[in-house]
């Protein structure tokens, strides 16, 4: 990276980022210990386990956030979560085809807030988020990654690129670009 575009970004404390663990912790604390130690009998006795295997656990916004918050910024060794480039309230999951009853398709929309309005790396960051989600989520999810309105000077242009299936597919086969993306993913757990 020749020159940093934003050499002094605002960084959030990792401990302050939204997580499910904290909520889960609280719930567990409130349950008397004797029950917590008891294995869930239903899990063991369930006879229709075949059906259970087919049932996916529902994926919620927090899970999407957890998948992308550790992605590193391409120019800082800091995560997108810490930089508030991605944030929980800017993630939504909606049925893709609400008029088709029983359709399993769901659209995950992630709005990205670049650290500066003219960040030329916005496309790479967006691509990183899209790749991460497409590789982690079941194929019934349609991934829609876009720049949050008003946070980037060429937001529409970036959105058009990120939404172009052919460009994204070609980018995935571009070694140089994928090296950058792989580096960003190194910090994902």
């Amino acid at each position, binding site marked *: 990276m020749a020159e940093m575009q934003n050499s002094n970004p605002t960084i959030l404390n990792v401990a302050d980022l939204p997580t499910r663990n904290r909520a889960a912790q609280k719930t567990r604390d409130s349950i008397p210990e004797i029950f917590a130690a008891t294995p869930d009998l239903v899990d063991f006795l369930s006879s229709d386990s075949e059906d259970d295997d087919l049932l996916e656990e529902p994926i919620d916004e927090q899970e999407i956030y957890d998948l992308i918050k550790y992605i590193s910024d391409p120019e800082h060794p800091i995560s997108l979560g810490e930089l508030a480039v991605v944030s929980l309230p800017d993630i939504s999951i909606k049925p893709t085809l609400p008029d088709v009853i029983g359709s399993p398709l769901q659209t995950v929309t992630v709005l990205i807030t670049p650290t500066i309005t003219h960040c030329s790396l916005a496309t790479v960051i967006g691509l990183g988020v899209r790749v991460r989600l497409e590789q982690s989520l079941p194929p019934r999810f349609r991934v829609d990654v876009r720049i949050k309105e008003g946070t980037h000077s060429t937001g529409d242009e970036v959105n058009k690129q990120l939404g172009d299936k052919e460009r994204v*597919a070609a980018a995935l086969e571009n070694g140089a670009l994928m090296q950058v993306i792989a580096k960003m993913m190194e910090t994902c757990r």
Partner: protein
Amino acid sequence: MLTMAPNLTLLSDLTPPSLERTWLTAPHPTLPLVATCSSDKTVRVYSLTNFKLLSTITGGHKRSVRTCAWKPHVQGESVLATGSFDATVGIWRRWDSYGRVGVMVAVGMLLATCARDKSIWIWEDLDDGDNNFETVAVMQEHGGDVKCVSWHPVEECLASGGYDDTIRLWREDLDDWGQVACIKKHEGTVWALDWEGPETTPHSSEQSLQAQWREQRALSGPRLVSCSDDRTVRIWRRLPKESALPSTLSSAATGIPSIIRPTGTDETWEEDAVLPQSHALVVYSVAWSHKSGLLASVGADGRIVVYEERLVASTPDTDAMDTESESRAPLKTEWVILAVVNGAHGIYEINHVAWAKRADRGSSDGEEVLITTADDGSVKVWTLQP
């Protein structure tokens, strides 16, 4: 409108499929086979007689094969052009042991390629036995990736669509290929184009109406259909040359010799129809049957939609004021959705749709199938049951 709807029924999958995304399936112009391009860098050739894999073309491309097209009007030989993300075009030949009698015609010697670099190249197959192609023209008017090119069914005219949301038409004029029209109406990338067949007619119970319609169409020529990121499918019609005549005459009347391209080559293309909104996401492909005149579209929502054009019986106008212009008013048609299949490839996006002649046992003469190509590698063959 859907009460008497025919059914789109799955006839067969093409097996074995690619295990990676397939982009497009091109039916052979004469033989009962198709070529499917895949992200696994191969092209698979399947039989439409038994839906089985005949051969796999490998080793030619270093990245995904994005598109392919068969050379039309050749006899005894099959020639396939492939385009890949590796920025190369491949030409593949195969001699058939059972050569058919083909018709030698002048068209079909030109190959058009389009690319991410905003350019369209037209190549001439020199057919010198040495696989030489000569560059005929390079057009760079598009403002972004050129996503698709499609040859006019009878004239030497090319249509292109792209990332700049435009559709452009190109013709050769005095040895020079140039843009003759630019249509800016889509509000998103134009993903695919297809031409109307020269011989189809909209559905109608009145033959006189159909005859009248054919006369009318003869003036403007086959129409063009486009589909886009904006989720619409639109039809475009060239204004008959007669309409352009006055301006040509007036420029001739000035008597000033023109150095620039004569305005006579410019064409005006009008929106003929917007098809009933039926896709919730990007529409990636559209196919216009040259046999039945039916249209089919597919896209990211996993839907196949089949449309039929019907002539609208003109209601006699009681207002006699305008009889002369009324009699010359163009016939109206409406597009009706004939069939919709949701989740045609399960949860996967559909990248391409094409019509082909049905060739399996149990097919009747002149019957057609619809072939759809999807992200999971599957290719499915459908029949439209009345």
